[in-house]
Structures are given as C-alpha cells and as structure tokens.
C-alpha cells in the first residue's frame, strides 16, 4: 500500500538552531513530493515540491528539502529556525506515476515548536 510517514509527532528546536522535519514514503512509480505548512486555524500553505532533477529543493521562507531515493525520504530542513516557524508541517506524495489520479497521500503532520 502507498503511504507517507512522518515519524515525529512533535519537534522542538531552539531559535537559531537548524531544524529537520522527517518524512518517508512508500509508493510505486516515481513520486512527486510536497511539503506544506499550516498555522493555527488556517489553510495549508505550499512550501516546496520535488518532481525531478536536483535532489535538493529550495522553497519558501528559507526551507529546503532533500530527496533521497535509496532511503525513500524527503526531509524538510532549515539552517536557522525562527519562532515564527512554529506550525504544523505536512508531507505529501503524489504524481501520475503513483496511479493516484491527481490525489495526494498525506502524512499525519509534525508539530514544530521553536523556542526563543
């Protein structure tokens, strides 16, 4: 079965430190991989995506993610966390190669708390 896992319910990091939010996937075919962020009582905002090409993808607000095919991972990273980065982060996978017909498979989300 196709799935996305975000193994950490919550990640805590001090402001100014690097942050990593983990995501692994299991799909058939070549995946398209996405990261979204959700602030309280708001809709999800698109951060970045990997379709093909360079394994390191840069996105909004200084975030980046690295596609690792051998480890089937797509971890979200930022070199220096800000308190304003505190939010809920979702990983998702889709793409025509997965046979999902334009639907995305979503992880359960990771709550990031950046402490001042």
């Amino acid at each position, binding site marked *: 079965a196709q799935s996305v896992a975000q193994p950490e319910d919550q990640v805590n990091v001090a402001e100014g430190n690097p942050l990593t939010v983990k995501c692994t996937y299991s799909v058939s075919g070549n995946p398209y991989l*996405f990261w979204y962020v959700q602030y309280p*009582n708001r*809709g*999800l905002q698109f951060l970045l995506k990997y379709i093909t090409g360079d394994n390191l993808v840069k996105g909004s607000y200084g975030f980046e993610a690295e596609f690792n095919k051998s480890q089937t991972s797509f971890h979200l990273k930022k070199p220096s966390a800000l308190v304003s980065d505190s939010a*809920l982060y979702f990983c998702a996978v889709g*793409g025509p190669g997965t046979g999902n017909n*334009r*639907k995305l498979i979503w992880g*359960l*989300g990771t709550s990031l708390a950046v402490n001042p």
Partner: protein
Amino acid sequence: SQTIHQWPATLVQPVGSPLSLECTVEGTSNPNLYWYRQAAGRGLQLLFYSVGIGQISSEVPQNLSASRPQDRQFILSSKKLLLSDSGFYLCAWTKAGTDTQYFGPGTRLTVL
C-alpha cells in the same frame, strides 16, 4: 493571480440540521477541486474531488455530499449533520494536469 475563497469561516450547527459550505476559485479555469476534513487530531481526510462540472468522486462513504454546479464552485452539503461531522473543512484546487494543491482558509464547523 489565483485565489480561493471559503465561507463561512466558522459555523455552529445543531445535530440534524442541514449544511452547505461553499468554495470558489478565481483566476483560473477548469481546476481540479478537493474537499478535505481535518479532525482535531490534525490528519487530513480527503472527502471529495472533482475534475469538472458535475463530476464528483467520493472518497469516504458518509452523510456528506458534494456538488460542482459551476466550473470554479464546489459545494459541500449534508441533509442532517452528526456530531462526528465537526471539524475543519478545507477546500483545495490544482491546475488541471498538475499535482500542487492550493488551499483555502478553511471553515470551522462545530456540531452541537
């Protein structure tokens, strides 16, 4: 540029009452449209999606229904709400043929 609207922003309804949530997209044509529910635990559950007017695919059997009367309008309905229908309802769109979803601001529904 494209924008997506949802209303109302919040709604409190008694059990057994009807429901109608509306989603509209501006600045694009023939989008794919999606309805999600996000329960308190935070995971996203895909409820319905549509690739065109009158074309609705249901993902989860329940007492909700969806309709797409116009190209850029997507409506979520229920004839009789249940307590379990409470949650945060999110509408999203994609450009036809692509996978990046863009979300509306959501509707917080509380069924009492």
